[in-house]
């Protein structure tokens, strides 16, 4: 049985490239809370952080055709989030004011702090683990079938042939997987 790894998130990406909003929502559900946490930690203001992360997802959708299918998707998502934060902080630190106020100074500090590559690598790696965890806690069989069906685009009949189980069982596992994802991620799937 194949493990869940980022080649599967990449399969998710290939669905998104086909305008699959369900796949997009899965990606969003997995990433949004983590990215918001990162953005909030550096830009301080929650509303600004929310807008930055929204930007990230809008960008992913609009750029989906240009994203290489074999790219390190976690790295890609992390980097656009990080760059968006850095851009925001650069603007904030350079804003004119009579004397450096505390917000401006903090923005300058966070700008330098987030620009540090080795520190940033720590964050990127941990983000990857967190995302893997969220997906990995699916029960094995469910996960396997779910990925085959939703992410590899196989038909239920093909899965049942490959795994030598009935079509009904496949359907059962898929709905179980979706239910589990719903509960685990505590989020509501808008598209399905």
């Amino acid at each position, binding site marked *: 049985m194949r493990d869940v790894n980022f080649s599967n998130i990449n399969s998710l990406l290939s669905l998104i490239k086909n305008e699959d*909003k369900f796949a997009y*929502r899965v990606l*969003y*559900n997995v990433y*949004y*809370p*983590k990215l*918001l*946490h*990162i953005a909030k*930690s*550096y830009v301080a203001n929650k509303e600004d952080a*929310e807008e930055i*992360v*929204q930007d990230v*997802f*809008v960008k992913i*959708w*609009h750029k989906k055709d240009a994203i290489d299918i074999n790219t390190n998707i976690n790295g890609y998502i992390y980097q656009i989030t990080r760059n968006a934060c850095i851009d925001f902080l650069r603007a904030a630190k350079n804003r004119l004011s009579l004397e*450096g106020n*505390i917000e401006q*100074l*903090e923005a*300058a*500090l966070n700008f*330098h*702090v*987030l620009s*540090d590559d*080795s*520190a*940033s690598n*720590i*964050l990127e790696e*941990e*983000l990857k683990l*967190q995302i893997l965890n969220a997906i990995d806690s699916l029960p094995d069989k469910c996960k396997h079938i779910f990925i085959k069906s939703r992410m590899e685009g196989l038909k239920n009949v093909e899965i049942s042939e490959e795994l030598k189980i009935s079509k009904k069982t496949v359907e059962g596992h898929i709905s179980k997987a979706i239910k589990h994802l719903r509960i685990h991620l*505590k*989020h*509501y*799937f*808008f*598209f*399905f």
Partner: protein
Amino acid sequence: MQKKEIKDLLGDKMDSEGRKQLVKQVLNDPERIKELAIEKAKQVSKFENSMVSEPELDSQFKKVLRRIGRKPRIKYASVAAVVVLFLSFGLYYFNTLSINSQLVQVTTAIGGKEQVVLPDGTKVLLNANSEIQYPKVFKDDIREVTLIGEALFEVVRNEHKPLVVKTYNGLAVRVLGTVFNVKSYPDDKEVQTTLVSGKVEVIKDNNSKAPIVLKPFQQAAYNKKDKKLIVDTVNALDAISWKDNKLIFNETPLEQVVQDLQRKYNVTFKIISKELLDYKYSGTFDNLTIKECMRLLKVSSPIDYTITNNIITLKQE
């Protein structure tokens, strides 16, 4: 750099003047910036309190969708489908076309059946020769679907967003979350709504002022000709037996029996004896072929039949 300094900078407990001085100092010292960067990355990496509540996640996603939707690209195929539908069935209830009202349409052939899952997770089992239409994304305040034919609904509960099933003849069914069956074929005399569990409202002529509320195991039969709605207690499980490939008739007029058989099997019936039109048939066809159905009909009623190609002729014995 002292541990205390890092702790002070990562936390927010310092008074603003002291903090300002410290930030200024660190900004002038690349070594301390690097140290702080690593410590901060470690702290953020714990992802403490990074949960986002379901409604918040949802509302943020809607914002993302809205922003994506600013360049609406409506697929011509779906517009064409809408136009064709409009012409063929005279549907008149779709509002402005926007990205959110892109319609999905699922159709079944004679003898076919199809499971459809709506955008909210509601499950619909579509019976033979039927068609359901729904938007890719439901509106904010209502879940609206259009049905021609028969379908069994298992509705995901959402009290703020009722699900309304519209039929082509002005009758609508409004629900919050429940299991029910709607049978609304153009060539049937009645539109039947049968409730298995939960609560539904049947609305006549789009008049939401006087809805009829059904209790479980009740069926609302709307006669299209005299426009009367009759509520009766029925065996609701019989009404949805088609999902298990069964046809159950209970004092059902032969005309209706014949309609149901025509939809399930690709055959056409001719009733020669006029007295048979009023005949009421009771019986169960459990996973039978059309030939087996006819044999059973013959032994359980005063009806005789002949089959030529796909045409079945019925006459009184």
